[in-house]
C-alpha cells in the first residue's frame, strides 16, 4: 500500500498532500509547547503538502484527461479533470506561501493560539484539497462543510466582540449555504430517479437529463449555496470582519481557497453538470457579478482596517471572476463559442491571479500588523522606509489588484473586457445592451480600485509615521518577507509572460465547455480576435521611457546642486503639524459625499434592531458548541 504512494501519479501525490496536511497539523498540535518544533513541523509539513498538491495539479493539467480514481490509503474517490486541477493549483500555490509565513508567525504567538491555528489551518487546507478534487456531491458538501467549520474556529479564536459577531455570521451563512447545497443535490438525486449513492457522482449527473424546472431550481439553490461561500453580494455578510479576525495567513487562505471553492461550484453547476444553461442563468450571474464588484470596490474605500479593506477587494474580485463565468454561460446559451471560451478563460485566469496578489497582500498586511501591532492604517505611515521589502511586495500586488499593466491582474481583466466586447457585438438585444454597461461598471470598479490602492499605499507606506509604533517598526523575519515577496514576483511573471500562459488556461476553459481550445495568444501577445496587447512589450516600454526625461534632466543639469531633503512641508505660512496631513478618511471623503445613497444602503439592509437581536450572547455561545460538536461528528464521518 505504501508503495502506491510513491509512484508519483497525480492520485498518489494528492493522497500524499492530504496526508501531509493532516499529519503535520496533528503533530504540530501535539508539540505546541515547543515554539521552534511546532513552527518547523507546521511550516515544513505545509510546504511539502502544498508542493505535492502543486505537482499533482500540474500532472493532471498536463495530462488533460478526465480520470476518476480512488486515492491510495484514503477512502476517497477523486476526479481529476483540468478544471479541478486548476483549482487545486490556484489554492495550493497560495497555501505554499501561507505555510512559509506561518513558519515564522507561529514562533511569535502564545501556545494556545499556536496549537489551534496550526491544526485548524492544516485541517482547512486538507479539507479544501479534498473538496477541489471531489468526484461526487456528497464528498464535496462534506469537505466544504468541514472547511467552513475550520474557518469558523479560526475566526472566533480572537475572542472579542467583533470576531464573535463575524464568527456567528460565518457560522450562519455557512450552514445556510450547506443547507442550500444539500437541497440542490437532493433535488437532483430524486429527479434522476437513481436508487444508489452512485446517483450523486458528478459523472452520472452529467449524463442525466433533467427537466428545465428541476434544472433551474437546482441552479438557483446551488447559486445561493455556493454564493454564500464565495461571498456574492448580498450574501457576503461573513466576509469582511472574518478576514480581519483570523490570523493573516488564514485570511489569505479564506480569500484564495475557501471563496474560490464557491466560485468553482458555480462554474460546475452552471456550465458542467446540468448541460447547456438557458440565457437567464447567465444574465443573473452577470448582474450579481457586477453588483458584487462595484459594491465591493465602493465599500473597500471606506475601510481603514487594512485587512477588512482587502476583504472587500476580495469581494470585488469575486465579482470580476463571476463576470467571466456569467459571460461564458451567456456564450453557451447563445451558441457563441468565442465569447464563451474567452469569458471563461478570463474568469479562470483572474481566479488564479487573484489568489497570487491577494496572498501577497494579506501576508504583507500580517507582517505590518505583527511588527507594529496596528490594524488601523490611519495610525501607520512611513512604513516603506522601515520595511522596504514588504512595501515593494505590497506595491506590486496592489498594482496588480488595480489591473495596472503589465501585471497579471491586467492580463486577465483585459481578456475580460474583450469578452464583454464580444458580448456587446452579439446579435441578441439584451446582450448588446448589457455588454457596454457591464464594461462601464468594470471600468468604474477599476477606477475605484485605483483610488483605493493609492489610499492604501499612500497612507500606510508613505509620508511621515502617525504613531510611535509605526516609527519604530523593523523588518519582518526572512520567511515572512519571502512569503509576501514570492507571490508578488509571480504576479510580475504571470503578467509579463501572459501571452505564453494564456493558452494553458484556454485549454482548461475549452475542456469545461467541451469545445476545441482557441489559443488567444500569438507571437508574444494576447490576441482576442478583435484586438491584441503585448504585455512584454509594454513592460519594456514602461521601463525604458522614464529614461528619456531622466536623460533630459541630466543633460541640462548645468551646475545643479544635489537634491536636498529638509524640513516640514509648506503649510501656507503656519507651523506644520502632523495632524494637518490628509488621512485615509479624508482621502476618500469626496466619494462618501458623491455616493452617499449607496453607502446608506448598508444601514437600510441591516437595521440595527435585527443585528442586535441576532448578536445576543447566547446565540453565539450556542453556535460555538454546535460548531464544535458538528466538527467532531464530521471528522469522524470523514475518516470512517
Amino acid at each position, binding site marked *: 500500500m505504501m508503495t502506491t504512494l510513491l509512484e508519483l501519479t497525480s492520485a498518489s501525490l494528492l493522497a500524499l498532500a492530504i496526508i501531509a496536511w493532516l499529519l503535520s497539523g496533528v503533530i504540530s498540535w501535539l508539540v505546541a509547547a515547543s515554539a521552534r518544533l511546532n513552527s518547523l513541523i507546521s511550516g515544513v509539513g505545509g510546504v511539502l503538502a502544498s508542493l505535492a498538491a502543486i505537482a499533482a495539479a500540474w500532472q493532471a493539467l498536463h495530462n488533460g484527461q478526465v480520470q476518476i480514481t480512488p486515492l491510495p490509503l484514503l477512502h476517497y474517490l477523486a476526479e481529476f479533470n483540468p478544471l479541478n486541477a486548476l483549482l487545486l493549483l490556484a489554492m495550493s500555490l497560495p497555501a505554499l506561501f501561507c505555510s512559509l509565513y506561518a513558519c515564522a508567525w507561529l514562533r511569535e504567538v502564545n501556545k494556545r493560539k499556536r496549537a489551534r491555528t496550526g491544526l485548524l489551518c492544516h485541517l482547512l487546507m486538507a479539507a479544501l484539497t479534498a473538496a477541489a478534487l471531489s468526484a461526487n456531491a456528497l464528498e464535496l458538501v462534506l469537505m466544504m462543510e468541514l472547511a467552513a467549520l475550520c474557518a469558523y474556529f479560526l475566526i472566533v479564536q480572537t475572542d472579542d466582540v467583533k470576531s464573535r459577531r463575524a464568527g456567528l455570521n460565518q457560522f450562519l451563512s455557512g450552514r445556510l449555504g450547506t443547507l442550500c447545497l444539500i437541497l440542490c443535490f437532493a433535488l437532483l438525486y430524486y429527479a434522476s430517479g437513481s436508487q444508489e449513492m452512485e446517483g450523486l457522482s458528478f459523472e452520472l449527473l452529467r449524463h442525466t437529463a433533467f427537466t428545465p424546472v428541476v434544472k433551474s431550481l437546482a441552479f438557483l439553490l446551488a447559486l445561493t449555496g455556493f454564493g454564500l461561500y464565495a461571498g456574492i453580494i448580498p450574501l457576503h455578510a461573513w466576509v469582511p470582519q472574518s478576514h480581519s479576525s483570523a490570523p493573516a495567513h488564514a485570511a489569505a487562505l479564506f480569500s484564495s481557497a475557501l471563496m474560490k471553492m464557491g466560485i468553482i461550484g458555480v462554474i460546475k453547476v452552471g456550465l458542467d453538470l446540468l448541460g447547456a444553461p438557458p440565457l437567464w442563468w447567465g444574465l443573473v450571474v452577470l448582474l450579481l457579478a457586477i453588483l458584487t464588484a462595484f459594491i465591493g470596490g465602493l465599500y473597500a474605500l471606506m475601510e481603514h482596517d487594512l485587512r477588512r479593506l482587502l476583504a472587500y477587494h476580495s469581494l470585488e474580485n469575486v465579482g470580476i471572476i463571476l463576470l467571466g463565468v456569467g459571460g461564458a454561460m451567456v456564450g453557451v446559451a447563445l451558441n457563441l463559442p468565442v465569447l464563451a471560451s474567452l469569458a471563461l478563460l478570463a474568469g479562470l485566469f483572474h481566479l488564479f491571479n487573484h489568489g497570487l496578489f491577494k496572498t501577497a497582500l494579506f501576508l504583507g498586511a500580517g507582517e505590518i500588523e505583527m511588527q507594529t501591532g496596528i490594524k488601523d492604517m490611519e495610525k501607520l505611515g512611513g512604513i516603506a522606509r522601515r520595511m522596504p521589502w514588504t512595501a515593494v511586495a505590497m506595491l506590486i500586488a496592489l498594482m496588480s489588484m488595480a489591473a495596472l499593466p503589465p501585471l497579471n491582474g491586467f492580463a486577465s481583466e483585459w481578456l475580460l473586457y474583450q469578452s464583454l466586447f464580444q458580448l456587446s457585438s452579439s446579435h441578441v438585444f439584451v446582450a448588446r445592451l448589457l455588454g457596454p454597461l457591464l464594461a462601464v461598471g468594470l471600468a468604474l470598479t477599476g477606477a475605484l480600485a485605483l483610488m483605493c490602492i493609492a489610499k492604501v499605499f499612500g497612507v500606510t507606506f508613505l509620508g511621515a509615521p502617525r504613531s510611535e509604533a509605526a516609527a519604530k517598526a523593523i523588518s519582518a523575519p526572512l520567511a515572512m518577507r519571502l512569503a509576501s515577496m514570492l507571490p508578488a514576483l509571480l504576479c510580475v511573471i504571470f503578467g509579463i509572460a501572459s501571452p505564453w500562459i494564456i493558452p494553458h488556461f484556454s485549454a482548461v476553459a475549452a475542456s469545461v465547455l467541451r469545445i476545441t481550445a482557441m489559443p488567444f495568444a500569438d507571437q508574444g501577445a494576447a490576441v482576442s480576435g478583435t484586438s491584441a496587447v503585448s504585455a512584454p512589450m509594454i513592460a519594456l*516600454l514602461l521601463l525604458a521611457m522614464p529614461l528619456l526625461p531622466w536623460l533630459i534632466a541630466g543633460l541640462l543639469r548645468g551646475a545643479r546642486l544635489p537634491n536636498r531633503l529638509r524640513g516640514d512641508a509648506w503649510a501656507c505660512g503656519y507651523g506644520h503639524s502632523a495632524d494637518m496631513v490628509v488621512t485615509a478618511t479624508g482621502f476618500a471623503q469626496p466619494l462618501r459625499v458623491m455616493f452617499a445613497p449607496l453607502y446608506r444602503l448598508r444601514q437600510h439592509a441591516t437595521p440595527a434592531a435585527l443585528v442586535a437581536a441576532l448578536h445576543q450572547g447566547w446565540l453565539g455561545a450556542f453556535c460555538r458548541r454546535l460548531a464544535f460538536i458538528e466538527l467532531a461528528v464530521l471528522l469522524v464521518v470523514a475518516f470512517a
Partner: protein
Amino acid sequence: MNFPVLLNSSLWPLALTQAVVLLAIAPLFAGFSRVMRAKMHNRQGPGVLQEYRDITKLLKRQSVAPAASGAAFRSMPYLLTGGLLVIATALPMVTLTSPMGAAGDLITVIYLFAIVRFVFAIAGLDTGSPFTGIGASREAVLGVLVEPILLLGLWVAALVAGSTYLGAIADCVRHWPVSSSLTLILAGLACAFATYVEMGKLPFDMAEAEQELQEGPLTEYSGAALGVLKIGISLKQLVVLQLFLGLFFPFGMAENLTPLTLLIAVALCLLKLLIAVFLVALIENSVARLRFLKTSCTTWAGFGLAFLALVSWLVAG
C-alpha cells in the same frame, strides 16, 4: 484582422519618433495656451517660448523636498512622463493605424492612463503636506468620474468599428459609415467632454487648482523635479488631446506611407492640435471653477451623452 504587434512591425521607429516629438513640442503648446490667456485678459503676457525658458532654468536648480518625502515623491516626474510617452507611442497621429500595436488597444491605453494617475496620486501622499494629499485625492476622484464616460464613448465607437484596436477605430471614422453618423457624433462628443476633464483645465482644474490648493500635488516640487514635472503635465494635455483627435478627427492621416502623405499628415496633425488648444483656451478662460463636490453633477451630462450614443447604436445597430 492583422495586428502589428511586436517590434517586427516596421512602424516602431515612427512610434518612438512621435513620442519624442510630442514631448519636444509639449511646452510650445503650453506656451501658446499662456499667450492666449494673456490676450484674453488684455495683458502683455510672456512669449510662446516662455515655457522652454522656465524649464531649462528649473533644470539647473536644486530640488528641495520635505524630510517626510521618499522615493515615490522623487521618482514621480520621471514615471509620469515615461508613462505618458508609452501612451504617445501607441496613438494614431500621422498614420491611420497605431504605430505601436503592442499597446494600441483602447483598454490598454485607459489602464496606462491609470498608471499615470496612480504615480501622481501616491506622490501627493508622500510629502506630509496638507495640500498635496487633497490634490491626490481629487485626482483619483476625477478618475472615478471620467473613466466611465471615456470608456463608454470609446466602447461605442469601437462597436461601430468592430474592434477595440485604436487603428481600427480611426480607420472606421476616416471612412465615415453614414448609417452610424449619429452614434459616432454622440460618442465623439462624450469623449470630447471626457478629454476636456482629463486635461485638467478650468472649470475642471481640481487636482492642480492653483488658487485653491496651491497646485495640489505639485506644491512641494522645486528645481529640476518641477521642471520635469512641468514637461510631463503639458505632455499629458497633448497626449489626451491627441487620443481624441486621432480617433475622432483622423482626416488627412496617412494610409500608405509616402513622403508626401507623411508631410501632409504631420502638418495636419499639428494644425488640428493647434486648433484644439485654441478652443480649449477659449473655454478655459471664459468659465469659473466648479465646486469640487458638485463636479459629479456636471459629469453626469458627459455620461448622458455617452449613454445616448449607446442608445443610438442599439437602435441603428
